[in-house]
């Protein structure tokens, strides 16, 4: 309290006390009638920064399962399991991220050749158990209808190609035989080449 002597000082102290209390009360009542700034978290969420790095999301239809992200991850928190099928179709089993470990460095997203893995805007990772923090990013497991169709088409294509090749070979053979009959063995025999790389090659399971 300021040192104020005499009756005048007493009155000034009194006035200051009452006045400053009134000022303070004015401020608090003004705030009382303002809108609360609280964001009701589970229902409402605050807008995150434009380049916020949250929980990943995967554009699965773009992903070619090249596993670059898995290799790029400095703490090995990505795990990918799939099986290759004909027609470039992948049968998905798992594309999981262990958020116990993940530090959101975005190193998985940079090297992706198809730019199909991103860090999203979702940040809430409240779970009851640590095991629940291993999230699967897949939107579908296994294969879709369209995949099955693709495989079928691919297989048909393959069969068709094989048939074509066989037909061609047969034709060539017939030609050759005809030529041989004509007595022209000059042309060397061509090596057989498949029409396409074997699509069934790289199916890999772990």
């Amino acid at each position: 309290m300021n040192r104020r002597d005499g009756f005048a000082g007493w009155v000034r102290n009194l006035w200051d006390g009452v006045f400053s209390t009134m000022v303070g009360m004015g401020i608090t009542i003004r705030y009382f009638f303002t809108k609360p700034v609280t964001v009701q978290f589970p229902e409402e969420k605050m807008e995150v920064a434009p380049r916020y790095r949250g929980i990943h999301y995967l554009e699965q239809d773009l992903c070619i399962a090249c596993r670059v992200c898995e290799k790029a991850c400095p703490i090995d928190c990505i795990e990918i399991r799939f099986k290759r099928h004909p027609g470039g179709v992948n049968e998905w089993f798992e594309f999981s991220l262990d958020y116990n470990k993940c530090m959101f460095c975005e190193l998985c997203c940079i090297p992706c050749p198809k730019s199909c893995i991103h860090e999203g805007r979702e940040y809430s990772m409240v779970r009851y158990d640590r095991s629940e923090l291993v999230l699967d990013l897949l939107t579908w497991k296994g294969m879709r209808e369209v995949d099955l169709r693709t495989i079928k088409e691919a297989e048909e294509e393959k069969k068709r190609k094989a048939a074509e090749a066989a037909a061609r070979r047969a034709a060539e053979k017939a030609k050759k035989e005809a030529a041989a009959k004509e007595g022209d063995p000059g042309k060397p025999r061509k090596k057989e080449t498949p029409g396409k790389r074997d699509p069934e090659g790289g199916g890999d399971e772990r």
Partner: protein
Amino acid sequence: MISALPPAAAIFLAQGTGGESRSLFRDLFGAGSGWGSFASAVLGFAVVFAVASALPVLFTWAERRVSGRMQQRRGPNRVGPFGLVQAVADGVKLMFKEDIIPANAERFLFALAPGLVLAGMIAAFALIPFSERAIVVDAPLGVYLLAALLSLQVLGVVMAGWASNNKWSLLGAMREAAQMVSYEIPMGICLLIGVLSFSTLSLREMSLAQADGWLNVGNWLIFRNPLFAFPAFVVLYVALLANTKRAPFDLPEAESELVSGFHTEYSGIRFSFFFLEEYASMFLVSALAVCMFLGGWNIPFLPGSVVTGSVGAEILAALVLIVKSFALVFVMIWLRWTLPRIRIDQVMNLCYKYLTPIAFVCLIGTCWWELR
């Protein structure tokens, strides 16, 4: 007419009709040996107890909501509509918490203290006239008895502080004792102003005397005698604030220095007694100030004669008193979230150098005003 009321209200209203040779004992026990009136007194107290323990539920909610809004928060809003049931949930939690008595505490006094505090407060509730006839004990000594019961609170607090065998509790109790004994002086003088203005000690008669007048507010003490009664009302309000240990006078439980003061060692249901007492006494002292200075149950702008007599009028009157008291309670909450806690020397300064002289000036001024 009473038979037309619901039972609880009938009990409530059956008490307190005027008489010439009245005494507290006869009010409670009837003349001679009436067990019937004793039973009705007990029931009256039960109603009061229910009211007194329901109010804190509302006030803790109000306190948390208001403080939230003053800090641009929302306050509790999860349990029930607007979080209204939050306090009930907290109460249930408190009831089921472990009731700990510290090993070195004074067991008997430790257990007794919360009950003493709560009992004194509830007894004081019985003296508040909610309407002309809704009063459990219409003691002719109303105000004086109420002041006595308020001054008893300090004993329970000191008992709790001492029995806890804890330095913070003891310090809190000492502060409480010092504060209470000091603030009783301005409080008593301000109550005296009301007493000598209406020349009665009965709160009921005071409220009756404040009926009618200009717009039905002209006879309220702060308007009837604005020059002296208004400052007296402010002084009384501040003194009552100190009496209820509310911020900025919450030194006995100053949590930043004394953990939580005299109830540091209390937990569970015993703690809830102190809690209940604090919040119920907020209403109690507000109702006291309302009865004396703000016209009691009289409705502003509505002449009393229009609505007197019927059951509805009684209930309306009670509601008016409650609303007025709630307004004062709101100011208490408002003050709490505005002002920081003041130091003990400032508490004493305020009491002895400011409130007491002002109260005396108001007392003398009121004497002159009434004799004018």
